[in-house]
């Protein structure tokens, strides 16, 4: 704009020149008037001359400026064009990338890490489909507030910690869609840093692995079923083949012996021959007896079990480990485990695997007891001490409880009320605890459900406090 106004001044110069000429003409006519007038005129003339030369200079300067600015404009125009091209290219790239992000079946979202509440600022189409929320519900929301709140609190906590420590996270968890439908989410969260290394965003990618999980689960279930069938089948088969193997020599021995009796009862003729025959029969009896003994010896070596390996054990740590092992199972069955662990629990002496087996049995038992009822959800595992010589571990459920007439029988072999139970879990647990010098007991809670608890003596002389999250 400034250039244009300057350009407008250019045509003014000719009019000035004209005016100068006309004034000089009038001056010549009045030459005779006076010297002072002459002087005045010369002065005027020189002034005008100066002005003209100045104007010329100005004009040249202006022309230069204009040219210069035109050049500048040209380059700028070129630059703008270049930028526009670049921008177009970038736009194209963004478009393709967005398209890519929208066409994947993985849910993708971006979290603004510089805002305190970590809002989601982008989500792709699949994320909306997977979660069941519309774009407007998602954008600006905190990821956890949005829908992961109902997920396993342990994992949610882990993700939160990860984000706060600017680390990346990946793991599987159970989530819920807007309509309450469950789905298994394989989630990866990675921080994005700017050039100075500050985390500005988090990119989350989540895959719906429900089907995969289900297949895994089905396979696992089938395998377990198979295992159960083979276990029961094996037992029957084993007993049957054992019976057969022992009955063969017994049959032979009995027949030999009774043949010998018959021979002895017969007429006493050809005594020498009879004696030989009886000796032969006796040898057969000895042989078959050895055969039967061999079967029994083999059976014994088969049943000989290795001695448990006793070592100092932190029961709280073992409980935490076991709870982690059970997490998936518990989540799938829509139950919750709480632990109330006495932080100053002393160590005990025990076989780690056997004790874990007991804990698994008790937890599974509680889960089964609560299976039918969706309202009873909570299992509480508690450790405490009444007597400084022993620790008490308690598994309390809010399930169906134990009918009073059964409370003494639950630890018997083969006692079960479950349609597919073997009736071995609690009886095995009971013998394990007894082998540890403790006792396993069951009682019904006054407010419903049952509590199974066991005691184990503490290691004498040691009383080390342990850390236990409660």
């Amino acid at each position, binding site marked *: 704009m400034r250039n244009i106004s300057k350009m407008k001044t250019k045509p003014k110069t000719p009019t000035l020149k004209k005016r100068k000429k006309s004034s000089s003409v009038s001056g010549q006519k009045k030459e005779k008037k006076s010297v002072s007038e002459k002087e005045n005129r010369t002065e005027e003339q020189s002034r005008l001359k100066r002005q003209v030369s100045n104007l010329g200079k100005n004009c040249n300067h202006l022309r230069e400026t204009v040219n210069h600015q035109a050049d500048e404009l040209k380059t700028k125009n070129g630059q703008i064009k270049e930028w526009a091209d670049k921008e177009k290219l970038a736009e194209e790239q963004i478009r393709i990338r967005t398209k890519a992000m929208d066409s994947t079946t993985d849910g993708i979202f971006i979290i603004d890490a510089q805002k305190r509440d970590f809002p989601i600022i982008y989500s792709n189409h699949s994320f909306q489909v997977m979660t069941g929320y519309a774009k407007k519900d998602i954008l600006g929301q905190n990821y956890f507030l949005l829908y992961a709140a109902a997920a396993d609190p342990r994992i949610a906590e882990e993700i939160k910690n990860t984000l706060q420590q600017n680390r990346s996270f990946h793991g599987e968890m159970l989530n819920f869609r807007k309509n309450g439908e469950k789905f298994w989410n394989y989630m990866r969260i990675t921080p994005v840093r700017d050039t100075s290394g500050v985390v500005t965003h988090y990119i989350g990618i989540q895959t719906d692995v429900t089907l995969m999980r289900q297949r895994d689960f089905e396979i696992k279930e089938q395998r377990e079923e198979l295992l159960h069938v083979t276990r029961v089948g094996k037992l029957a088969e084993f007993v*049957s*083949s054992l*019976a*057969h*193997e022992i*009955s*063969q*020599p*017994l*049959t*032979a*021995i*009995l*027949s*030999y012996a*009774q*043949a010998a009796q*018959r*021979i002895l009862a*017969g007429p006493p003729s050809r005594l020498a021959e009879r004696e030989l025959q009886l000796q032969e*029969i006796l040898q*057969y009896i000895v*042989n*078959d007896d050895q*055969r039967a003994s061999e079967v029994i010896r083999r059976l014994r070596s088969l049943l000989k079990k290795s001695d448990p390996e006793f070592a100092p054990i932190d029961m709280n740590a073992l409980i935490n480990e076991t709870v982690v092992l059970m997490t998936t199972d518990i989540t799938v069955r829509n139950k919750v485990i709480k632990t109330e662990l006495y932080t100053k629990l002393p160590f005990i002496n025990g076989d780690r695997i056997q004790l874990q087996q007991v804990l698994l049995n008790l937890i599974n038992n509680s889960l089964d007891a609560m299976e039918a009822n969706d309202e009873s959800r909570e299992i509480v595992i508690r450790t405490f001490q009444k007597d400084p010589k022993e620790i008490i571990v308690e598994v309390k459920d809010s399930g169906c409880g134990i009918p009073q007439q059964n409370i003494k029988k639950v630890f018997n072999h083969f006692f079960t009320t479950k349609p597919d139970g073997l009736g071995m879990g609690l009886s095995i647990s009971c013998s394990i605890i007894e082998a540890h010098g403790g006792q396993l007991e069951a009682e019904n809670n006054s407010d419903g459900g049952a509590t199974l608890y066991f005691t184990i003596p503490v290691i004498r002389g040691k009383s080390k406090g342990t850390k236990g999250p409660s």
Partner: protein
Amino acid sequence: MTSSKPVIYVVDDDVSVGRALSLLLKAHDFNVEIFKCATDFLAFKHPKTSSCLILDLRLPYMNGLVLQETMASQGLTIPIIFISGHGNIPMSVKAMKGGAVDFLPKPFTDKDLLNAIDRAIAKDKIINKDLAEKENIWRRIKTLSPRELEVFRLVCSGMLSKQIAFKRGTALQTIKVHRSRVMQKMQAKTVTALIHFAQKAGLISSK
């Protein structure tokens, strides 16, 4: 049918059991034949003596129940006593339904075994007597002319001579002649005896 000592066949893959049973049964004056598998037993040329089979349920290649079926399909009517070290109820039911005389779980006493053998031999004698009688009747039936055989059938179905004559369109006298020849050839003194023969031979059903 020679009335010599009965033959006891034993099929058991366990050598010692076979030997022990052989010793025991020989001490009780039986002839004994031991086989280690079902095919050996089937391949054996069975003499026409009264006999029975002591058969182990579990055998290599062909188990006892399959042998029982095979024998039935081959018309081998030797009574069977099953012995088994691990017999279950369904198997023993199947064995008994297939006509077994007894099912003895191992180990068994000589008393139980000898009892079963006695019953089996008695059954075998009845079977053999029946077979012999049937054979005898059929030998007589084969001497009948086609016309006599037809009259035989019609008499046994309960028709009177005049009904037969009417049905055949022949003179009553002719039918009476045929009928008396049938009685003569079949060695039947009464019509009741004749009908009994027809039943035994399987010409008419017994009901």
